[in-house]
């Protein structure tokens, strides 16, 4: 692994009798975009709050760029761009005034300030609302003000708690593009419960459930765990479906065939392979031999939400490596 920028070492947090985070350890290197997944209340935000230096851990610690967050919180905060959950900002300030304030607290020199604020505004496309009070902005713009604040000082480590929550599909696309563009020179951690986001921006994802880390892997590794990994769906007229199902079922490497309505008098057959088997080539050959009038042939990569549910409900049952 390349130099670790964030090292979380057996981090734990209790609130009275409730254990919110229960001994999480992980490392994030430069160039990685780590997705934090988990059900609500799993401890994602609490973990992020501890790494960002807002909450103090009850056990363990985290190091950011080599600085311990318990011993040197200010040094850690200097190096992190943090977007708290809900992107809070002072409602009666204008976006510009708020960013200027953040720049001042971050000790950005007055001469450099305008350029830094300008760059963050450009990245997050805030120019049109720069002089409006934040309380009058839409949810999407508020989120982007929070994001601009996190990018202001060009930090080496970015911790973004639900960066695309409340954005419309276009804005989500832009923010994901922004995160990907910055990924090479930073270590980025984002939390989300939108699974498509993991596929779109993350190079690695960890799943947290009940305050514990239950899975750690690349999006492709998670997809490989899915029942639907390498499944093939074939759509053909209903009249030929029974014949096709029987023929496919007897094929080597096929575990099961599921029937679904394909619309317009067609049936969609979802062919599940046995674990680790590739069936697309042989199935394509079979379809050609039988001369079925196939209207759609599609290989599935795997469904992340299947895997997510499997991991977070039956903890530790299926996982790449935990």
């Amino acid at each position, binding site marked *: 692994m390349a130099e670790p920028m964030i090292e979380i070492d057996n981090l734990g947090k209790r609130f009275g009798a409730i254990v919110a985070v229960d001994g999480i350890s992980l490392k994030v290197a430069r160039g990685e975009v780590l997705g934090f997944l988990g059900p609500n209340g799993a401890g994602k935000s609490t973990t992020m709050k501890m790494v960002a*230096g*807002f*909450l103090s851990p009850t056990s363990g610690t985290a190091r950011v760029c080599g600085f311990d967050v318990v011993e040197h919180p*200010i040094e850690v905060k200097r190096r992190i761009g943090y977007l*708290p959950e809900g992107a*809070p900002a*002072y409602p009666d*300030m204008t976006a510009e005034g708020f960013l200027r*304030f953040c720049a001042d607290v*971050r000790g950005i020199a007055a001469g450099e300030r305008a350029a830094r604020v300008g760059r963050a505004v450009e990245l997050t496309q805030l120019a049109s609302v720069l002089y409006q009070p934040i309380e009058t902005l839409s949810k999407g713009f508020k989120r982007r003000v929070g994001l601009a604040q996190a990018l202001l000082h060009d930090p080496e480590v970015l911790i973004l708690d639900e960066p695309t929550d409340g954005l419309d599909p276009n804005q989500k696309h832009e923010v994901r593009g922004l995160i990907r563009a910055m990924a090479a020179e930073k270590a980025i951690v984002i939390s989300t419960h939108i699974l498509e986001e993991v596929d779109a921006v993350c190079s690695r994802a960890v799943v947290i459930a009940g305050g514990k880390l239950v899975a750690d892997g690349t999006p492709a590794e998670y997809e490989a765990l899915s029942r639907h990994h390498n499944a093939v769906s074939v759509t053909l007229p209903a009249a030929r479906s029974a014949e096709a199902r029987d023929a496919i079922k007897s094929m080597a490497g096929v575990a099961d065939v599921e029937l679904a309505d394909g619309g317009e008098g067609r049936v969609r057959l979802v062919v599940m392979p046995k674990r680790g088997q590739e069936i697309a080539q042989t199935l394509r050959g079979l379809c050609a031999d039988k001369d079925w009038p196939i209207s759609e042939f599609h290989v599935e990569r795997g469904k992340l939400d299947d895997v997510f549910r499997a991991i977070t409900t039956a903890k530790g049952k299926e996982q790449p490596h935990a």
Partner: protein
Amino acid sequence: MRETLAVFRREFAAYFATPLAYVFIVIFLVLAGAVTFFLGNFFARGQADLEPFFMFHPWLYLFLIPAIGMRLWAEERKSGTIELLLTLPISLTGAVIAKYLAAWAFAGVALALTFPFWITVNYLGSPDNGAILAGYMGSFVLAGAYLAIGVCLSALTRNQVIAFVVACAVCFIFTVSGTSVVLNFFSGWAPRLMVDTIASFSFMTHYQAITRGVIDLRDVVFFGSLVAFCLYANVVIVEWKKGG
């Protein structure tokens, strides 16, 4: 230091970003004038001094200063911006001091705007301007003491109204603890030491000593240590309440 200054500037400007500053200043000036002229018999006394003006400041501050202090932490906690503020590279102590000083400076602005009273007495006669200066200093210090209590209590809740009411009640206790009503209640049965202790916590006694133009070290130490204690408690409370 620079980050403390940045937070100070933001907090100070925040008063003027909403009508709060203007409403507060107008009401403070109107009330200060009303009590001076009607309750204090400013003209009938026939003396060119500001004693009737300063005399009522503790009672004005009692409920006006908590109105300045109530928002400082309660609002941050309610809107969640506390998480933003405390993940910027500033120490909690720095943030507490910056907020307190911003509110105190604002109280200072309101107090400074009472300068027409000073002009009036100088026009009507020849007052002892040294005594007036001492009065202003005493009043400013008194405002700082009430404010330290108010800011500290505002960290306890995310509800500004609760912060205000509790701060008023605590300030009231400190204001009346030296009056004969309170002391007589205790002197019948409590040991002398306790009565003296209660009396020594009276803002009135210490304030009147300063406004008389006698800057006694004991009064300075009293207000100084009270403010320091409240700010320390403020840091502890913010730290304690962060998780919830």
